[in-house]
């Protein structure tokens, strides 16, 4: 198993691990990945992946509008709100 780039993984997950914890998680991940590595010995060359045990087709709805929730209900849990917007520090693109 290759080394785990904990910085890259935590970046993907939008987590900023305190430096003293990086090693803790890195080791923990290594252990777990090693533990699950036994799957590699299973011959699955003739097996299709199983996404969901209910292997039916997706359920569908007709293209109809139902009332959307009120703006206040949508915003009622917002940490910061300005008028009817969610408010965040400026996004730099």
């Amino acid at each position, binding site marked *: 198993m290759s080394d785990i780039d904990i910085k890259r993984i935590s970046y993907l997950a939008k987590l900023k691990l305190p430096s003293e914890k990086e090693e803790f998680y890195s080791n923990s991940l290594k252990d777990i990945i090693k533990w699950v590595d036994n799957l590699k010995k299973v011959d699955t060359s003739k097996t299709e992946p199983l996404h969901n045990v209910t292997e039916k087709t997706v359920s569908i709805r007709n293209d109809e509008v139902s009332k959307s929730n009120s703006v206040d209900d*949508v915003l009622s849990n917002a940490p910061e709100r300005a008028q009817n917007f969610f408010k965040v520090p400026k996004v730099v693109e």
Partner: protein
Amino acid sequence: MSNNWEMVIGLEVHAQLKTSSKLFSSSPNQFGSDPNENVNFIDSGMPGMLPVMNFGCIEMAIKTGYALNFNINKHSVFERKNYFYPDLPQGYQISQFEFPILSEGYINIETGDNQKKIRIERAHLEQDAGKSIHDIDPKYSFIDLNRVGTPLLEIVSYPDLSSADEVINYISSLRQLLMYIDVCDGNMQEGSLRADVNLSVRKKGQELGTRCEIKNLNSFKFIKQAIEYEFQRQINIIDGGGEIEQNTMLFDTSTGETRAMRSKEFSHDYRYFPDPDLLPVNLSQEQIDKIKPLVGELPQDKFNKYLDNYSLDKDIAKIIIAEKQNANLFEKMISESTVKPKFIAAWLVGDIFAFIKENNLEVNSLNDKTKDITDLLRLISDDVISNKAGKEILPKVLNGEGKPSELVKELGLEQVSDSGELEKVIDEALVGEEENILKFQGGSDRVLGYFVGKCLKATKGKGNPKLINKILLERLKK
């Protein structure tokens, strides 16, 4: 310098589908509402909310499949594309990745006198994101989630395009087709159709260079500017001994320049995987077949029909098929009237479109006036009124000021086509014109025009010129 260079372009066009509700939620798919007005708890990514697929989107994708010559895949799978952005409430976008609904299509575009086939790799359904508004406050951005979940069809071409003009041609053709099959309103200003441009440069005949992607262009003008700027930028870098870095670029509409998006510490890794909240889409052949008749006539079908059945000139036919509403208006008039289609078409692309343009109207707005218009055209083609009188009355008809026949009476524009009456006028006009009569008989055709003019003047312009001509000739040849 740039003579030896050529550009290689592939496009990702995002078309918003004009369904009533969103891709996975039943909130309204509507532009221009108040902030966060069209948002339900699914759209805002509340805990425990689940997507339910809107079959209307599948129908529209299938129609697009027929129009763009795609393989329509019976099996497609929605996956999650994972990344963080404030206007992406779930922290992932539901999209199709490994199994898109459409694959391997093409369209033909016109390049000069030739046609070029542009191959399209795939088209897949996905959710649109919300909008971050940056210009209200210097320190804050404001998030409006109305657009979240709007269905998008992302149409991904092969890198078959090699100039800004071709790109514009390609997008125009796509837009025209999507509007014809009624799946997208084509409104680029409102973002209903947006393009990401993947551009690389190479010396002619050499292999492909590193490409940069210019994101989110929503007007033909910007697309052209961005392509031209980026083309030159890349050439300058290579000529200066540099290398092109694969980058995502933004186009700054105020400066006309492209620039790399804020550099990312790590490259994107979207970690696609099948959305466990949704099951695969499995369509039956019957479901697909049922949608075929809904596609209707495509622009090329209409073009051929106009030439073959109505004998229209190519240029006029092209103008009419350019937009579906033009064609609809034209065909409505044909179906309601016995005036020759060619005559209708000439008036449509001439005075009628000029009126629409002058008054900033929608072509559709004339749909309830077609009867009056064709009545007027009937009067003109039957010589009840002159062409000139027709032009005078047309704006009044289009403004709804009255029925053509009434207007003709009111304005006294009816042509005199009573030969007895005209004969009198002509006879009077010829009195004292012996010299000119002799000139005519001596072979001077110009004199005929003089006499016609004189007669018209005597009828105050209402004499039927054709008839006057005819009678004059008879008289003069005596």
